[in-house]
């Protein structure tokens, strides 16, 4: 096993009711890398990453089997509390979802407060730190007590990134984080990702293949719940091993 592996997935299956949407996926993510998940809509890539923080099982009728080793410990082991996993594996969603009743400040520290951090000097420090890491600090430092929802869509998404980073997760899952944003906001978040990988391992679902090619180290290509190809991004995009991958990245289906 690779010593730098932080997340290792072994034979992961996921269901919605009786429909199997993830069909036995195995893959490894290395520390401080960005892994992109590409594939057509409904191929199971979103469900797959929602299994990595045990969020999938929160949907009605949903379940998952298999192993997901986070720093060599299986998060699907019986005695593991999913709540503790979600503190170590952060998530950013497709649509920005700051808490509407909370200020920018309170949004960023929401996770810390849940974890029981109360000291206001600590909270202040982490807010500045996280907002800087999410490249939002300069835009909001003078209005930390304005509502999170008063920001623009792109800013809201960076606020959500700051919120996820504030609890210092090992892994950050991103489910099409730029699909609801304009190109400029998208650019900012992509830029941010190259910085983020120094701190955290990123697994990102994207519909945008140029984006995957620009920002990721590895790329995984999903089709109908199966992992068709997984490798170095440059290899997947320039010399795909599978015909289906080639057809997808050249835009001939999906």
């Amino acid at each position, binding site marked *: 096993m690779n010593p730098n592996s932080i997340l290792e997935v072994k034979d992961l299956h996921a269901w919605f009711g009786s429909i199997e949407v993830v069909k036995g996926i195995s893959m490894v993510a290395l520390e401080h890398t960005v892994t992109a998940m590409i594939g057509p809509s409904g191929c199971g890539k979103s469900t797959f990453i929602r299994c990595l*923080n045990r*969020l999938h099982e*929160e949907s*009605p009728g949903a379940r998952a089997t298999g192993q997901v080793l986070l720093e060599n410990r299986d998060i699907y082991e019986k005695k593991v509390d999913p*709540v*503790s996993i*979600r*503190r170590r594996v*952060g*998530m950013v*969603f*497709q*649509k920005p*979802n*700051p*808490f*509407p*009743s*909370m200020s920018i400040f309170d949004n960023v520290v*929401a*996770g810390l407060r*849940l*974890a029981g951090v109360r000291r206001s000097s600590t909270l202040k420090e982490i807010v500045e730190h996280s907002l800087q890491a999410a490249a939002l600090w300069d835009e909001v430092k003078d209005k930390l007590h304005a509502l999170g929802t008063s920001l623009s869509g792109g800013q809201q998404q960076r606020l*959500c990134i700051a*919120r*996820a980073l504030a*609890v210092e997760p090992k892994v950050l899952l991103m489910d099409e984080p730029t699909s609801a944003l304009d190109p400029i906001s998208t650019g900012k978040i992509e830029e941010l990702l190259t910085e983020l990988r120094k701190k955290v391992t990123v697994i990102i679902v994207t519909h945008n293949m140029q984006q995957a090619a620009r920002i990721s180290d590895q790329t995984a290509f999903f089709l109908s719940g199966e992992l068709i190809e997984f490798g170095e991004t440059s290899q997947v995009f320039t010399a795909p091993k599978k015909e289906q991958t080639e057809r997808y990245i050249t835009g001939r289906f999906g």
Partner: protein
Amino acid sequence: MFSFSPRPKSRKETHLGDFIFASLLRLISLGLALMLVVIAFFLLRGAFASVSRFEWSFITDSTWDPVQEVFGSAPVLFGTLVSSSIAVLIAAPLSIGIAVFLNELAPPKIGKAIGFLIEMLAAIPSVVYGLWGIFVLAPWLRTTVEPFLSKNLGWIPLFTGPYYGVGMLAAGLILSIMIIPTIFTISREIFKTIPTTQREAALALGATRWEMIKISVLKSSKSGIGGAVILGLGRALGETMAVTMVIGNRSEINLSLLAPAQTMASVIANEYAEATSDIHLSALIEIGFLLFIVTFLINAFARIFILRESRR
């Protein structure tokens, strides 16, 4: 090449049928809005004799004596306020709790089934609640609950004095059951408007189920829940039949919840048919007018609250 759509027809060119139909509807909706004003006007006109004779003492005086023709509505204002407050204090936490449970925790099928049954509580006629109150609730209070309260908590003014089963407590309890569907249904509708992504945002940060409910559900529906409670209060204030049947109908201010009391609605229902003097009738109509104004304001207020929330 561009193609231009023909100039839209002006209103005058529309079909005659459409015109008649639209005018008719406009007339009906205006008429209904006007009805509110007309009702207020006639109530005020009927109450005129009482208003000019008793002035402010009508609200502050606590003597209600049809024989002496002295009418002070303080006892019935008090009765309405207290019985409705008991109802809200019991029903609000219960209804909100049930709404949270059925919407956030229970399996969807069970949530739907129980939710439906609770909504059906609103369909039971008020007089049936009253019958149940007289034959089940009041005897149970008289033989079980009130002796206990009187014995153990009798030193608190709220539970002193003789008990009869019927009285303020019985009215408050029956009202609380009657307003549960109102508060429950509106709270649940508000919870339903909260997007799943809000709940997932909390869960993904490491919130437990209860923390998620607090952060994503309750915190962001505060004003809507407030509106639901006020709407429940509005319903309790005006509820007549069931209250009249179980409150004991005595127009006195008594701090004890075990004592019989009277509400604005119940005094009208009780005395309207027997009001022989003009001033008695006028006093009852003035109470009706006050009740109308209060419930109107409360309902308007509540709806503004709820509207703000549902614009998410």
